[in-house]
């Protein structure tokens, strides 16, 4: 096993690969784009999902069942990428952050989770609030939301992870390299076939300096921050998730 996997047998630790990886400006623009994406995603998805779940969890509305079917069907019946792309393009969202946010503003699966959580709140609370003359906004903001914080924090984390991991959709909707989120930058570096079919193998020089180790340096740079931040978030998150309730 002379070379084997360099991951497990580093041929001498060197900071050079890290310096080189950090010097790659694309990683920083990628980070910037991804942070915007995650932040935007949390705000938008949370708002939309809460509103949708609230409406769907009201028992008095006649149309609720119909609305639920209308929504659940989309989880399983989708038109495919090209028609979807045509719509997004038609709205002028191409090459914008909007293309990665608006079309995914509600994740139906998250919606179902949140709705079941709202439904599991005692009906009396709601009724007594309505008797006191509270409107829907008060009910939502002052009673439903505070009681569902644990589940909401689950949704936040779900959404953050979804947005963080997005790569396929951006690869189709973002046709401008400077707008690539981190995952696409990473893919570009890991595959690094930028110039393979090219007459001369341009970038050969790049490869000489970069070598195999830079691949791992880049992976570390792009992964470790999340893994470091995550346990801190998780402390709150698990606690709240465990006191929360999600009923089937």
């Amino acid at each position, binding site marked *: 096993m002379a070379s084997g996997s360099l991951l497990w047998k580093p041929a001498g630790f060197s900071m050079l690969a890290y310096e080189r990886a950090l010097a790659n400006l694309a990683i920083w623009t990628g980070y910037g784009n991804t942070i915007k994406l995650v932040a935007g995603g949390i705000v938008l998805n949370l708002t939309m999902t809460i509103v949708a779940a609230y409406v769907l969890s009201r028992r008095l509305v006649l149309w609720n069942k119909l609305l639920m079917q209308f929504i*659940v069907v989309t989880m399983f019946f989708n038109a495919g990428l090209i028609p979807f792309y045509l719509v997004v393009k038609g709205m002028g969202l191409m090459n914008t952050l909007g293309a990665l946010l608006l079309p995914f503003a509600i994740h139906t699966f998250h919606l179902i989770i949140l709705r079941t959580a709202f439904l599991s709140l005692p009906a009396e609370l709601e009724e007594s609030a309505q008797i006191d003359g509270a409107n829907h906004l008060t009910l939502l903001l002052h009673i439903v939301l505070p009681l569902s914080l644990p589940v909401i924090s689950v949704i936040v984390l779900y959404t953050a992870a979804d947005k963080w991991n997005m790569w396929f959709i951006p690869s189709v909707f973002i046709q401008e390299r400077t707008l690539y989120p981190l995952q696409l930058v990473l893919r570009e570096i890991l595959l690094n076939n930028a110039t393979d079919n090219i007459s001369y193998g341009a970038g050969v020089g790049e490869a000489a300096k970069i070598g195999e180790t830079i691949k791992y340096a880049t992976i570390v740079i792009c992964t470790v921050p999340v893994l470091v931040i995550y346990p801190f978030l998780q402390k709150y998150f698990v606690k709240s998730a465990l006191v929360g309730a*999600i009923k089937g």
Partner: protein
Amino acid sequence: MNRRSIARDFKRNKWLYALALPVVIYYVLFQYLPMYGAVIAFQNYTPMRGIWGSEWIGLEHFHSFFNSYYFWRLLGNTVLLSLYSLLFEFTAPIILALLIHEVRSRYIKSFVQTVSFMPYFISLIVVSSLIKDLTHSGGIVNLVYTWLTGGDGQDMLQQPGLFRGIYVLSEIWQRMGWESIIYAAALTTIPREQYEAARIDGASRFRQMISITLPGLLPTIMVMGILRMGRLLEVGYEKILLLYNPVIYETADVVSTFVYRKGLLDNDWSFSSAIGLFNSAINLLLLLSANALSRKINQNSLW
């Protein structure tokens, strides 16, 4: 519902209707509007002529897919991979949640959770790259596997027989902790008194798990199961795309990767849409049957 009750309902809940509006608009715009684009499955779609200007050819694409050389292989691979996932990937989080539930020490509990959630945050791009390196001949997983089975150390992603195992195991590793959250949360809703009563009756912990914990989880399991059934033909093609190669097409090529190749690499958009449409129709059928079945068995239903 008659007209008057609709009017009354609308009047009473006008704010709710207002809140519902953005939600409905979202679903119409981004979920239903693209469905109309799926009509290109019945055409020879030529972008420059647009959807209405393209030539209509009826069911030709469906015929040629059903009669195509790879049809049965694709369908078989998709269903098998899905069933494996259903068997292992679906049950693993439930088992994990049950085990964590049984652990008494809060610190161990929290430690196990932290560790088991972590893989979910490593992106697919990185995970696939790592899987490739580890299963490569000379990679650590490959070394262990070779040592256990006495093989010749061939790249594991070049052995058709191993692909499903690698795929399902890596999915479990990445998602088990994450998906157990839902069950963990559901477990907390089981009233403590039930356990106390059981303990007084002298039920063992295993007995308690079978007769209290599992029934308490059942509604959640059913809902998750129904959702899962509806996705039988929809395995995660993004990961397969990053992992597969022609040698293992025999087991790794599934309907969705085929759709991807036809649509995005061969520019055969109409054909690709036809296959996608077929896929969706089967999914929907499965979902509806699973839901109906579930309602019959224990009154659980998605709607």
